[in-house]
Structure formats: structure tokens, C-alpha cells
């Protein structure tokens, strides 16, 4: 919402503030000013002059030399190429050292352009005559300005006067951010009321008085509202003997200041009242209204209607239409029809100021794909009590501007009059909510300028109907706070029962995940939760893969963001590829983010959101580097049992010979592996890449921060090295399982120190060597005990077909 200072001052005459003061104070009282534009910011030393004499330039066909009277002793000589000026014209002149806002082509120059005297083709020129564009505006806003050339003032303009002032450019336009609850502030009057309350000045609403020209509106129009829920009020007045003409300068200037293009007196009056009162209006050519009857009804299904922009649009039953005795003549609250619009031939006019259901207008405007200034206002839900005042104001202006004769009386269909809300005035509760100690009198002093009336007998406040946001004590408390000043409210800290600040357990586990990942060289990335369904193909998931069962967004930003991810890898691979593309070497990334697994499809309850700890890397390191990170993480969160790895994890996006499910305590807690070369290539990663994905909910169940000291071994350890040849198909995991199982209590550790395939070893076999450490907690081990256990282990290994080497 834009509003100029001069327009606001029209209703708060005593307001005397700078643009910055106004901005700060209004923002602090709740009408946020986003910024302001001083219309004269780049204009300096521009005065009204009269061209006394024009001569041709001796050396240039297209230039003329003008002697301009600017009210000084001597005329100024100005050379110009403008085609439209003649002797006697009054024009804006920027004198030597002044500034204009832009070029005559309408391009603005930030900071303006300084004008200096100089010579044009050898003839001295001591200033410049200005076009409206050079003054920072346009013909849209100043329709009387010539298409090409210098702006010409009316005859009565005063020579030597400030041209900027004369053009209404000594003004500031504020841009307000109005919150959706303050519908009343989408109007100049609403803002003026706020300004008056903020600066404690008197608010003077326009005195509305329509003289009328006799006759009776009921002789001209009948109105029938068939859906009073969608149209709570419909006011109509009639104006006859219309004379279309440009509206007066003052009205044009005010409209221009808030960015509305002046058209003619009738259109300008409706726009003016819409800005002033926040009430959109519509004017119909009464002679096009069949039977002189207005019927407000819902459209029929697929009803076609041509709006005044010439577009044919299709309605449905939810759209409210304004109709005459035969046909539709307007889409309620959105746009009038081509068939009833005001043309230059208009003789009698029907003015409509109605109130429509905001939600309905919003939905209809969406449905039809047409959003207008009017629908934008209506959809916020207007106060029906405003309509009457607004239509009368419009009629008053009709009379003042001599546009036509206003017929006496108004048709007002208003079944269910909106009554003001009454709220109990509870100063103690207000103080308790705000943490203040204000007196009731002080609070009441804030209410008066806002139009809230206090009834001492009932102890109630009567809220004017335009303040639809004031319904309960909390709302009233905000009014008190706004005008007492949020700044003046004290600052305290909550007292009362002490509470313990804490992170839940699972978040502490996640914190360890971050620490370990980072200690291991992985940096944290973040990825979107939604992705393209094409991801499944890229990951080579078969058609029936459960991962393809994803939650689908019904109104996504496009297919690429249309499903909630069920696998965390796509984001990771994309980021690795981005880094690879940018030639970053040795990249390690991790992510903690959810996947979303639907319990049923279509979704009936919320999906299972599972936090995934995803690690990805390329460059230095391999499968076992990744495995080390996983195991150190698990160890750090108290998962000290031995993980097992099942190579049959069956992930199509991983290298078939280099992948494993990670199993802990018989539960699958994740998977890891080398990215399948085809998948890596399709993402554009030109190196071997490794990933690990840990399912945090599964891990959190097993994690613990409990620790127990088990003592430091006091008795000596005995180490036995064994070396064996086994079939290549045997996993060292299987060997370790046997050693662990058969080593019993005295087995402290077993460490693989050599795996070898090649020369001296038969094809299809490998040599594996372990260093096994035994220790007892309570004594020094005897040789016989060790031999016994070793024999058990060796027997076990032989069952795997291992051949021991001495």
C-alpha cells in the first residue's frame, strides 16, 4: 500500500513531520513503512519560466534559441531542440547548477543529472527546459504533458514560482507493509487514522455531503441479492447527464503520487475513493442494464463472460456474478463486463459499492486467473459499513467536479447489518499480559483516536466495525502496547518453576556422528528433501523396488522437486559430482537428513521420517577407510560389539563386489560400498566413490553413553601368530568369527596382519595371517591353556578348509 504524505495530511492537518520521523514512528506503532520516495529527490532549481522570444539557431536546423523569463531582471537564453514550444508558453526551467531526474527518454539516472550552462553549436545555453520525463515522471501520470517535448503549464502558472511544487512533486510517497489483519489500513483514511493516533494529532475525516438533484433512485434501478452470504451489502446510486472530462489537477496529482494513472473524471473518482476509503466501486452504463434491474447471483456452470478487458472467461457455480434483467454484467468484486462498461457515450451511470465475501472473491479470482486492484481489496474481507460512506463520497466528488447530476436516494440491500463488537475492558489482565503497570485512564487515552468507545456502565469497549481484528482482550492489549510503545515495555526474564535445558538422547548421538565424521575429514553438506522421481532410474533401482514407493507432492515446484526422498544417496552423489566437476580433489562429505517412508500410499498418516547419516567420498581412501569411520562412530556411541558385514546387500547402485550391509547385534543398521561405476558415471563422478548410509533410528536404539571401567590388565598377554591358506571365497569375517567363537574368555584380540594372493599361492586361494592375543584378568596364563584354545581355533579353521602354514 502506497500513500503520499500530502494525502495523509489532508486528514491530519496538524501533522508536521519529516519523512524519516514519519517512517520511524509509524513503524513502531505497527504500520510498517518499508521505504519512502521523495518525489523531488533528484530535482533542484527548477522554476516556471515563460518563453518570451524564439529565434532559429544560426548553425543548426533543428535547434531554436529561446529567451526565457524566469521572473528575474534578465531573461535566460536557452537553446533547445524541443519541437513543441512557442512564444508565450510557460515551461519548467532548470537553471545553471540545478538537477533533473533523468533523460527525456524516460530513463532515470540515480542521483539525477546536473545541468550546467554551456554552448550548443556555438550558442550559449544557460539552462534547460524540461519534459515530464526529465522531471522523473511520465505521461501516464501527467496525461496533459505532450508526447514529445517540453511540459507546458497552464496559463495561470506563476512565473518564477517553484515548478516542482506546481507539479505536486514536493511530496513523499511511503510504501507500507500492511499486515493481513489490518484491512482498514489498505486505505488512506485508515493510515491517516493510525498517523493521527501515533502522533497524537486530530483526525479529520472528509465531510461527506451529497446535495442530490431530486428524482428518486428507485425510479432508475432495482437490486436483488440472491446470495446475501457472498454479498452482505449492495449499495447503488445513479448519476445522470454525465459529462466525461479529465479530472482536476489536484485529483490527478494524488492518484499519480500513489502510482495510479489518471483516465477521466468518472474512473478517477472511483479510483480515488477506492484509495481513500479502501472500498472498490464499479460504474455501469445504466442504459446497458436490461430492465434497469441488478441481480446478484452465482454463475452457472461453464457460464461464459467477457470482462471489460475483452477476454472471454469461463465461470463455475462458486463465482458470484452481477447481472441485469437478462445477462451477466460483471464478475462481482473482480471485474466488470465489456457489455456494460462506461464509454464516451455514457449518459446515465450506475454506481455500485458493495461488500463481497473475501474468501469467495479470493478463490474466484484464483479460479478465473484474474486478480485486480478491486479483488485484491475485497479478498481481505471488507467492512460492509464502509460501502455507504464510500459511495456517498464518490457522489459528492461527482457533484464537486461537475461530472453529472446525482439522483436522490440510494438502493441499499443490507440484510444483516454488522454490529460493532464489544470487548470487556480488563486493565489488570492487560497489565498482566504485557508486564506493565499502566492506569486504566492511560489505556483509554490510546483508544479514543482509534475510534474505540468505552462504556463505563458495562465496562465494555465498543470496537468500530472497520477494526475487524479486535475481538478479545489480547487484541486490546496489543493496542495498548502499540501506543504505549513496545520500546517502553520493561524487559524481564520468566520467573516461576525452573526447568532443565537439554538435548534429547538421539540428538546427542547425532552430535557425535558430526564430530566423528569431521574428525575423519568429512564436511557437512545439506540436500533438499524433495527430488525427481527420475532419481530411481539413475540409481538403477528395479521397477518393483520398495524405494520407489514415495510420498508425492501434489503441487511441486516442478517434477525435479516432486517426491519426498526415500533414499539419501541422490543428494550425496549430486554434491560429490558438483565437487568433481569443479576439480576439487579428495572430497569427503556427510549429511544428516531425513528420508520419508510412507506407511501406506496414498498417504493416510504421516510417513516414517528416518534420519540418515550419509557419508560419501572420492579421492584418497577406499572402502576400508569408510569402514573405519563407521566403526569408530559406533564405538564412540558405546556400540562396542563387533559389527558384521554382509556382502549380499543387493544394492543395484553399488559395485556388486564391493558392498555390504552393516549389521550390529543382528540388526541391519545401514549399508556401504563403492558406487557402481555406471551410477558414478551417470552423475559425472570420474573416480571411484564410496558411500555409507547409516539408519540413525536403528543406531540410536543400540547407542549408549553409559561407560564402565573394566580395569587395566595386570597379567601378561601371550601372542600367537597363525598363518593359513584358504579359498578366495572365504571371507576374513568368517575366519574372525571362528576365532572369536572358539577363543573363549581368554581371547583378548585378533588382528589381521597380512592378506596375500599371487605368487607361491595356488590360484583361487589366499594366504591370511593373524596375530592372536590371549590374556586372563586374574592370572598369568599357562602354556597348556593357550595350547588348548589354539587347538580349538585351528580345528575350527580347518572346517573352513584352511590349510595352516608353519
Amino acid at each position, binding site marked *: 500500500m502506497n500513500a503520499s504524505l500530502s494525502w495523509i495530511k489532508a486528514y491530519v492537518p496538524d501533522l508536521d513531520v519529516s519523512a524519516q520521523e514519519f517512517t520511524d514512528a509509524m513503524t513502531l506503532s505497527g504500520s*510498517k513503512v518499508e521505504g519512502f520516495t521523495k518525489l523531488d529527490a533528484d530535482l533542484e532549481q527548477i522554476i516556471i519560466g515563460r518563453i518570451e522570444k524564439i529565434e532559429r539557431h544560426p548553425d543548426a536546423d533543428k535547434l531554436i534559441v529561446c529567451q526565457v523569463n524566469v521572473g528575474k531582471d534578465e531573461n535566460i537564453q536557452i537553446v533547445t531542440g524541443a519541437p513543441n514550444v512557442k512564444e508565450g508558453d510557460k515551461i519548467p526551467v532548470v537553471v545553471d547548477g540545478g538537477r533533473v531526474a533523468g533523460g527525456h527518454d524516460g530513463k532515470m539516472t540515480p542521483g539525477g543529472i546536473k545541468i550546467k550552462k554551456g554552448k550548443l553549436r556555438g550558442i550559449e545555453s544557460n539552462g534547460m527546459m524540461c519534459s515530464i520525463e526529465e522531471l522523473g515522471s511520465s505521461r501516464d501520470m501527467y496525461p496533459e504533458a505532450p508526447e514529445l517535448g517540453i511540459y507546458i503549464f497552464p496559463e495561470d502558472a506563476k512565473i518564477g514560482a517553484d515548478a516542482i511544487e506546481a507539479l505536486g512533486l514536493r511530496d513523499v510517497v511511503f510504501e507500507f507493509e500492511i499486515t*493481513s489483519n489490518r484491512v482498514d489500513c489498505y486505505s488512506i483514511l485508515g493510515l491517516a487514522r493510525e498517523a493521527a493516533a501515533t502522533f497524537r494529532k486530530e483526525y479529520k475525516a472528509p465531510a461527506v455531503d451529497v446535495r442530490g438533484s431530486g428524482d428518486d433512485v428507485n425510479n432508475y434501478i432495482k437490486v436483488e441479492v440472491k446470495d446475501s452470504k457472498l454479498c452482505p451489502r449492495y449499495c447503488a446510486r445513479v448519476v445522470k447527464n454525465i459529462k466525461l472530462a479529465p479530472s482536476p489537477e489536484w485529483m490527478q496529482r494524488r492518484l499519480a503520487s500513489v502510482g495510479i494513472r489518471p483516465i477521466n473524471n468518472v474512473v478517477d473518482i472511483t479510483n480515488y475513493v477506492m484509495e481513500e476509503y479502501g472500498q472498490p466501486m464499479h460504474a455501469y452504463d445504466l442504459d446497458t442494464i436490461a430492465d434497469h434491474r441488478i441481480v446478484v447471483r452465482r454463475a452457472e456452470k461453464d457460464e461464459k463472460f467477457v470482462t471489460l478487458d475483452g477476454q472471454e472467461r469461463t465461470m463455475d457455480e462458486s463465482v458470484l456474478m452481477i447481472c441485469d434483467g437478462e445477462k451477466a454484467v460483471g464478475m462481482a468484486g473482480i471485474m466488470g463486463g465489456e457489455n456494460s462498461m462506461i464509454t464516451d457515450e455514457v449518459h446515465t451511470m450506475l454506481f455500485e459499492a458493495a461488500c463481497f465475501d473475501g474468501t469467495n472473491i479470493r478463490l474466484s479470482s484464483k479460479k478465473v486467473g484474474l486478480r485486480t486492484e478491486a479483488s485484491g481489496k475485497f479478498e481481505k474481507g471488507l467492512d460492509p459499513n464502509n460501502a455507504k460512506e464510500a459511495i456517498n463520497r464518490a457522489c459528492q466528488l461527482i457533484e464537486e467536479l461537475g461530472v453529472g447530476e446525482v439522483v436522490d436516494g440510494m438502493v441499499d440491500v443490507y440484510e444483516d447489518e454488522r454490529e460493532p463488537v464489544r470487548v470487556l475492558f480488563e486493565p489488570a489482565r492487560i497489565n*498482566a499480559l504485557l508486564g*506493565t503497570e499502566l492506569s486504566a485512564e492511560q489505556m483509554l487515552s490510546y483508544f479514543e483516536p482509534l475510534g474505540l468507545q468505552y462504556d463505563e456502565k458495562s465496562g465494555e469497549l465498543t470496537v468500530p466495525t472497520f477494526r475487524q481484528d479486535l475481538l478479545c482482550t489480547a487484541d486490546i492489549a496489543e493496542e495498548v502496547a502499540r501506543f504505549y510503545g*513496545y520500546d517502553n515495555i520493561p524487559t524481564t526474564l520468566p520467573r516461576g518453576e525452573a526447568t532443565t535445558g537439554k538435548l534429547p538422547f538421539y540428538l546427542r548421538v547425532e552430535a557425535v556422528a558430526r564430530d566423528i565424521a569431521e574428525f575423519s575429514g568429512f564436511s557437512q*553438506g545439506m540436500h533438499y528433501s*524433495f527430488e525427481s522421481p527420475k532419481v530411481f532410474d539413475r540409481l538403477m533401482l528395479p521397477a518393483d523396488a520398495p524405494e520407489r514407493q514415495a510420498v508425492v507432492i501434489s503441487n511441486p515446484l516442478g517434477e525435479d522437486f516432486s517426491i519426498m526422498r526415500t533414499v539419501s544417496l541422490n543428494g550425496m552423489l549430486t554434491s560429490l559430482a558438483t565437487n568433481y566437476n569443479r576439480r576439487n580433489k*579428495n572430497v569427503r562429505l556427510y549429511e544428516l537428513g531425513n528420508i520419508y517412508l510412507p506407511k501406506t500410499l496414498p498417504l493416510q498418516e504421516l510417513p516414517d521420517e528416518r534420519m540418515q547419516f550419509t557419508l560419501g567420498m572420492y579421492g584418497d581412501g577406499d572402502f576400508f577407510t569408510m569402514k573405519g569411520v563407521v566403526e569408530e562412530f559406533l564405538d564412540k556411541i558405546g556400540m562396542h560389539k563387533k559389527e558384521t558385514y554382509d556382502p549380499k546387500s543387493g544394492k543395484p547402485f553399488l559395485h556388486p563386489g564391493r558392498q555390504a550391509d552393516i549389521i550390529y547385534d543382528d540388526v541391519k543398521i545401514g549399508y556401504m560400498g563403492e558406487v557402481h561405476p555406471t551410477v558414478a558415471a551417470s552423475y559425472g563422478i570420474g573416480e571411484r566413490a564410496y558411500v555409507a548410509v547409516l539408519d540413525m533410528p536403528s543406531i540410536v536404539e543400540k547407542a549408549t553413553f553409559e561407560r564402565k571401567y573394566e580395569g587395566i590388565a595386570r597379567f601378561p598377554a601371550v601372542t600367537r601368530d597363525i598363518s593359513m591358506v584358504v579359498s578366495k571365497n572365504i571371507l576374513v569375517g568368517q575366519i574372525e568369527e571362528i576365532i572369536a567363537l572358539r577363543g573363549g574368555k581368554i581371547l583378548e584380540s585378533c588382528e589381521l596382519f597380512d592378506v596375500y594372493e599371487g605368487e607361491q599361492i595356488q590360484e583361487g586361494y589366499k594366504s591370511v595371517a593373524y596375530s592372536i592375543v590371549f590374556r586372563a584378568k586374574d592370572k598369568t596364563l599357562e602354556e597348556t591353556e593357550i595350547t588348548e584354545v589354539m587347538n580349538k581355533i585351528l580345528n575350527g579353521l580347518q572346517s573352513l578348509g584352511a590349510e595352516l602354514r608353519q
Partner: protein
Amino acid sequence: MKERLQKIREEAISRIKASKNPEALNDVRVSILGKKGELTALLKSMKEIAPEDRPAFGQLVNDTRAEIEHVMEDAKKQMERMLLEMKLKTEVIDVTLPAKKNGVGHRHPNTIALEEVERIFIGMGYEVIEGPEVEYDLYNFEKLNIPANHPAKDEQDTFYINKEIVLRTQTSPVQARIMEKGKLPIRMISPGRVFRSDEVDATHSPSFHQIEGLVIDKNITFADLKGTLEEFAKELFGEDTKTKFRPHHFPFTEPSAEVDVSCFKCGGKGCRFCKGSGWIEILGCGMVHPHVLEMCGIDPEAYTGFAFGVGLERIALLKYEIDDMRLLYENDIRFLRQF
């Protein structure tokens, strides 16, 4: 015999003094003091001495042995000192040679900002509680005083799964979930991911993070809200930070406010960072609307509370001077390494 002893002593001492290394010293020890050494041999030849002189002579030999041992010990220490000195001299390194690094990874700026915020509020007795990212319309809107067809629903450009389920547009639904549980008082913050259908550009992302705060107790006031957030802003942006509360509107709080902090780059003088205003908007807040309390089963006559919501990216972008939001989701290692 005495002369022989004297000779052994003199020879031993002169050989010790002449020893250039520990090996030479050891040779002296072996040849003089060892089992087959000269001194030992001398002792063995004691029987040549008259029995009554033997104790005195034995004493003499032992004294001599002690003396030689003492000299030898001194010489050894001296030698070790010299050797150590030499070793240290030869082992001088260039300490300016490059470090051998482990290559530690870096935390995402969002997380760093989040941990800061969490630290501050945990210190004030707040519990961290998360809620679902895919959420019922009921919690995301209705229980927050945003009924069906409310314009705020449009303003928030919601991603819908179906009529009842949405991608949450704010972390505020967690408020409703926690209040419904009915355990009072409440002091919680709830960080998490939220979604709005904004196209990706330098200042917008369809997915970003918020941190919700909620306090419900008896006698909670707007002044408490101000005090709490002032404290928070000072912790986060520095002791000199000023806060400004501006009236605003949120459907689920009343009175509501937006909070600006004095620009932490220029201290409020006005710079390109704060677009010359000296202030930076960082959060929205207010007193929990009585309807919301009621809808969540809390008696608004007995309890009041405040709530606030902070944009995490906003803080991260401001604090670390990141000029493009897209960088946060690109995960270029050269970006991440700067945090």
C-alpha cells in the same frame, strides 16, 4: 703391593681421562674392575701378605676401587652430557616446515548457527524438541488459528501432499503438539526444516530451517518475551547488540512483534549490510494467542506464554556474510571449508 696398587690407580685414572667414548670407558672398567681385572687380581694375591696386614690392605684396595669407580662415574656423566649436547645440536629442525594435518572436516554454517542458538537456550533451561517435517494441516494451520481459507494459508505457499497432509511451512506446529501433551510449564525450542513453494534464487529456497521457541507458564508476560529475546540477541550477536520490537501480526500470537537487532557489522550506524538502516530484522514473536492455548487444551485464564520463530539461514547468512542462499545446498567443499 702398595706400589702395585698405586700404579693400578694411576693407570686407571689416566686411562679414564683419556677415554673418548663409552666403549673405551667400559674397556677400562673391565680391565681394572672386572672379574679378571687387575684390581681383582690384586685382591686374589692377598695371600702373599702377612695375615695381620691383610685387613688394612683389603681396606686400601676397596678404597681405591671406590675412588676409581667414582672417577669413572663422573667421566661417564660428563661424556653423556657431551653426547646429548651433540645430538641436540645435530637434530635442529626447521619449525616453519608445513604441518602434517589430519584434514579435519567442517561443519555446515547452518549447523554452526543452530548449535549457537541451542547452546544459548539450553543454558536458559529450554529443552530441544523436534517435530515431523511432513505434517498434518491440523497442526500446521488449524491449531495455530489459521482456519481453512484463511489468507495466511495462501501467503505461505504451502506444498500439499493431500488435503490433510502438508510439508510444514513453519516449525510452529511443534508448539501445538507440545502444548497438547499438557505437561506444564513448557520451555522449549524446536529447530527444523520447513518448506514453502518459493523458486530457488539468491535469497529464496523452497526448503529452509527455523527455530521455534515456546514458553508456557503462569504469569508469563510480554516483558518476559522482550527480556528473553534481548538476552538471546546479545549472546548471539554480541553484548552491545540492541533490539527493537515492532508491532506485527501472526495469527497464532497476540500481541505480536517483529524484532530487529542493531546491525552487528556497523553497530547501528548504517551500512550496506543493513541497507543503511542500522537495523536487521531477525525474528517474529508474540504472546501465544488465547485461542491457540484453548485449542491445545491449556486454560488461557490460568496460563500465558510466548512464542518466537527465527530463520536459521537468515542468521547464518547474516553472521557469516554469505551472499547467496544457493551456496548452502551446493556443498562445494571450498565453501564448506570456510566454516
